[in-house]
């Protein structure tokens, strides 16, 4: 019997597999395909203080082994979440984590404080890295001083496990991670999408309504893996790895690079049952390699 339990500060995952915000709805969309009890956690859609319509269509462009999106944080606001969605999802047999976004520090703080009051939400993931919204948080996530400000403010208002989701669109992600740690983050998750662009040569126009968008999917995995490795060496708090993970082998690679847990994102679109398959595949890997505890794999890269 392989132990798969992962303990992050104040947050216990039954296994290291979570689903990434924006790719798994509120979990309900996937219950025909996945028993959510098989997952360590789900991170639900980015939530902001106020209702947001998001960006105009088209919001998506397919790329080789990946996709660009510029959804722009469409959601009905934190009060709608609390009144309408939370009652439906609070009793899922897994950790339900809310991704919180904002365009100024007060918005982050107020939204985080409201979610702090929800008994069945053990953690939030602070999105300081959305590339698709003007002041969509990425402004905070790309400088050490910006991330310090927002994390400190939210830390004062939020008392449970605080994950800070980092942007890859920076020169030195390890420095940003250290700033988040110093400001009180309990863990960091990375990477959010990589800023990219697609052009339709026939029409000579951009494919996306916002011209640029966030790249995700299998194609970003090597970049994500490198950044997880760099950050895991630089900080003492746990690292949650994501970016292109599409198989159990990919997930193991992130654990070896130093991630304590992982999130499955765009791969959910290709196979809506993939998250539970990856959780099972991690156990099979451990059995094959005589590993009794998944925790032994974390940072186990031999260099």
């Amino acid at each position, binding site marked *: 019997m392989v132990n798969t339990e992962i303990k992050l500060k104040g947050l216990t995952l039954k296994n290291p597999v979570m689903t990434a915000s924006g790719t798994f709805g509120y979990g309900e969309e996937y219950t025909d395909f996945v028993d959510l009890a098989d997952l360590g956690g789900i991170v639900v859609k980015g939530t902001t203080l106020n209702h947001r319509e998001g960006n105009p269509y088209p919001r998506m462009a397919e790329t080789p082994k990946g996709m660009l999106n510029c959804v722009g944080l469409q959601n009905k606001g934190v009060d709608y979440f609390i009144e309408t969605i939370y009652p439906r999802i609070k009793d899922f047999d897994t950790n339900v984590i809310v991704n919180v976004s904002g365009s100024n520090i007060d918005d982050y703080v107020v939204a985080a404080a409201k979610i702090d009051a929800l008994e069945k939400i053990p953690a939030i993931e602070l999105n300081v890295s959305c590339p698709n919204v003007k002041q969509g948080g990425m402004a905070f996530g790309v400088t050490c001083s910006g991330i310090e400000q927002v994390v400190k403010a939210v830390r004062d208002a939020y008392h449970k496990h605080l994950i800070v989701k980092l942007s890859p669109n920076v020169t030195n992600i390890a420095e940003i991670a250290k700033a988040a740690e110093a400001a009180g983050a309990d863990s960091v998750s990375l990477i959010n999408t990589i800023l990219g662009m697609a052009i339709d040569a026939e029409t000579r126009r951009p494919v996306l309504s916002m011209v640029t968008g966030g790249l995700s999917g299998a194609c970003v995995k090597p970049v994500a893996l490198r950044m997880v490795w760099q950050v895991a060496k630089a900080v003492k708090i746990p690292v949650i790895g994501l970016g292109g993970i599409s198989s159990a082998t990919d997930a193991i690679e992130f654990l070896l690079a130093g991630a304590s847990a992982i999130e499955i994102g765009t791969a959910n*679109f290709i196979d809506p049952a993939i998250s539970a398959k990856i959780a099972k595949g991690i156990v099979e890997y451990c059995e094959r390699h005589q590993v009794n505890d998944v925790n032994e794999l974390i940072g186990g890269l031999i260099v």
Partner: protein
Amino acid sequence: MKKISDFTVVGKQSWRRAACLRLKCDDKLPEIRGGQFVHVRVDGGQQTYLRRPISIHDVDYQNNTIDLLIQEKHEGTKILCGLPVGSKVNLVYPLGNGFTMPENDDEILLVGGGIGIAPLLYFAKTIKENRNKKVSFLLGGRSSDDLILLERFREVGEVLITTNDGSLGECGFVTQHSLWNMKKINKIYACGPMPMMKAVAKVAREKDIWCEVSLENQMACGIGACLCCVENTTEGNVCVCKEGPVFNINRLLW
């Protein structure tokens, strides 16, 4: 209940830039409504990554088969159209809302343009199961080459045709067909290229006819999770994959 299942291509009919695949599943098919779609995984493409949403053209519950009528547009649909009999394909299905079933005394018209004729056949069959009134199709194409599988539609109902070049049926667009002045219609169901659906919606509004259209916005997840395929409606941005693909024209802003 939505499922994810492997199917085998057991039959195929091909045209110059389209194919009709008959897919068979070992599992029993769930109940499928006319106008719903499948999300097909595309394997082996250089540029492809995501699934492709394809309308359900026909369903045979006895033999556990689904027919998909696919037009070659880019690499993904080209790969699907090129699948030989015997290949495996993976479907997430049935997705979307489907068309609203008409009442017994409704005078309905099913309007299809190009490959948009695909979902109308199965929908018409489900209508016929519920009532014995004749179903009428109005199908349009650029030329007679575009209008495929007409014999299948004729087995289900009356088929009226327009072509832009006059090579089959009446010459012109579907909205220019003579039936509009002759027949009394109180429900229209339309699927086809955007300009055609907009023109049909315009006629429906002018004549005050109830009308549903099926949209094909680009999708990623197909199940309402990613919010990529949104249509701006009277209630704001909504997912075409989950709240659609069928919309009453009164909800649309065009």
